[in-house]
């Protein structure tokens, strides 16, 4: 790879916005658009001009908002204010103008303690969840599986990116699932790596395929779905899914899907399909024996 390719790649990575930033931007723009706007009658034009000038002055002189990065491999404590304490291992950032702390949490575990009845309005955001707090202690953990909220005491309101929402009291927990296909793929991988049941992995893969997905992500989800169906012994569905997959022009994981389709065909004693799919001498011999 030459320096220019390195430079292009590095620049793209640098300018690529994070999911969190995009989600935050979309929410903020939507909130601005939903705010009622004053009418524009000409008789108010002078007043409006004065207002704009005053607003511009106030904007220019507004209090500085503090943005602090949170990044630690081991548990670290941060006192945001007299009433808000964070303990975290992972990464995110906290923004505060004094009265309304906002924490954007990207990855890892964040433990929050808020003094009750002190009027603190604290919001924790992850790409999948928004958690609003009045006075409580709880934990937000974000990993490939999604964002999990566990409440120790008090009450928190949780809103997931997929529309689910609820109030959690002490001892309750809730997990917001990824809202993007790539996130669902990561969840399926994490479930499989963690030894979850194939049926649970299949649920995540199917959920990912129902979301908008780029071609490589869709191909990966589909290929893993075929493998999972095969592992569950659902050979009819696996064969149909593999046949549909192989009819497309996707190249990523094609060899793996072909091998899976061959194995499934052999298990179903579909010798003609196995013969057609055989790519190696061993497979051809197995298929020929099946035909005999």
């Amino acid at each position: 790879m030459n320096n220019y390719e390195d430079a292009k790649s590095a620049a793209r990575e640098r300018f690529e916005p994070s999911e969190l930033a995009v989600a935050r931007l979309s929410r903020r723009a939507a909130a601005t658009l939903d705010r009622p706007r004053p009418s524009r009658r000409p008789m108010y034009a002078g007043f409006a001009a004065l207002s704009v000038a005053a607003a511009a002055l106030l904007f220019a002189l507004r209090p500085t908002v503090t943005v602090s990065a949170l990044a630690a491999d081991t548990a670290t404590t941060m006192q945001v204010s007299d009433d808000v304490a964070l303990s975290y291992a992972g990464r995110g950032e906290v923004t505060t103008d004094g009265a309304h702390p906002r924490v954007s949490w990207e990855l890892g575990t964040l433990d929050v303690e808020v003094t009750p009845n002190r009027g603190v309005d604290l919001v924790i955001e992850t790409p999948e969840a928004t958690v609003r707090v009045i006075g409580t202690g709880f934990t937000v953990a974000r990993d490939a599986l999604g964002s999990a909220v566990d409440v120790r005491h008090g009450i928190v309101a949780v809103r997931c990116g997929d529309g689910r929402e609820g109030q959690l009291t002490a001892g309750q927990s809730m997990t917001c699932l990824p809202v993007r296909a790539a996130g669902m793929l990561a969840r399926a991988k994490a479930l499989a790596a963690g030894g979850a049941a194939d049926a649970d992995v299949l649920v995540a893969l199917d959920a990912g395929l129902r979301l908008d997905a780029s071609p490589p992500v869709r191909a990966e989800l589909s290929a893993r779905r075929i493998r999972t169906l095969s592992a569950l012994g659902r050979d009819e569905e696996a064969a149909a899914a593999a046949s549909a997959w192989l009819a497309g022009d996707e190249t990523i994981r094609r060899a793996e899907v072909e091998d899976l389709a061959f194995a499934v065909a052999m298990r179903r004693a579909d010798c003609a399909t196995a013969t057609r799919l055989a790519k190696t001498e061993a497979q051809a011999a197995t298929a020929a024996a099946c035909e005999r």
Partner: protein
Amino acid sequence: MHCLRVTPPLPTPALLDAAGSGDADARQQLFRDWAPVVLRWCKSLGGPKVDAEDAAHDVLVTALTRLPTLREAARFDAWMFGITRRVLTGHRRTAWVRGWIPGFTPDVPDSAEGPNARIERNQTGARVQAILERLPEDHREILVLCDLEERSDEAAAALLGVAVGTAKSRLRRARERFQILAERSGLAADNAPAALGGGR
């Protein structure tokens, strides 16, 4: 390579009509597709004093407010790019004015980015950004559109509202200038072709 690697499909007229009429789902769809593009433009084109997320917010709000004035849905991307340019110009001006207000603390330019970006893990990316910020605006635009976003000369010309020949010559000059600055900064001292995209 001539492909729109990072650009979503153009919205349909029906989607634009719905979003312009205040349909929340249509608006979300537009945000989902275009907020990343606009934010990327603001980060790469805004310069060191502009808060990219603030600027992107203003672009999206302006675009959604003015959707009824969009005449051709097929030119939605060029229309968005035009709004982005105007908003960035305004933000640069505001940043300049604020710099003259005694006692005013300028915004941290990276406040819109995650902590990863602030930690400067990628020195090469930071140096490329610094070089881009030293280029004239028209050179920065053409390099971002053609070399980073891999648009064809024709597509970039359409976004910029210039003739294809103008875009080509501007790209050539921008690459030459980038090359000079890159060599001075030691970024590209041992390589030949002329810019980020080099060999098209």
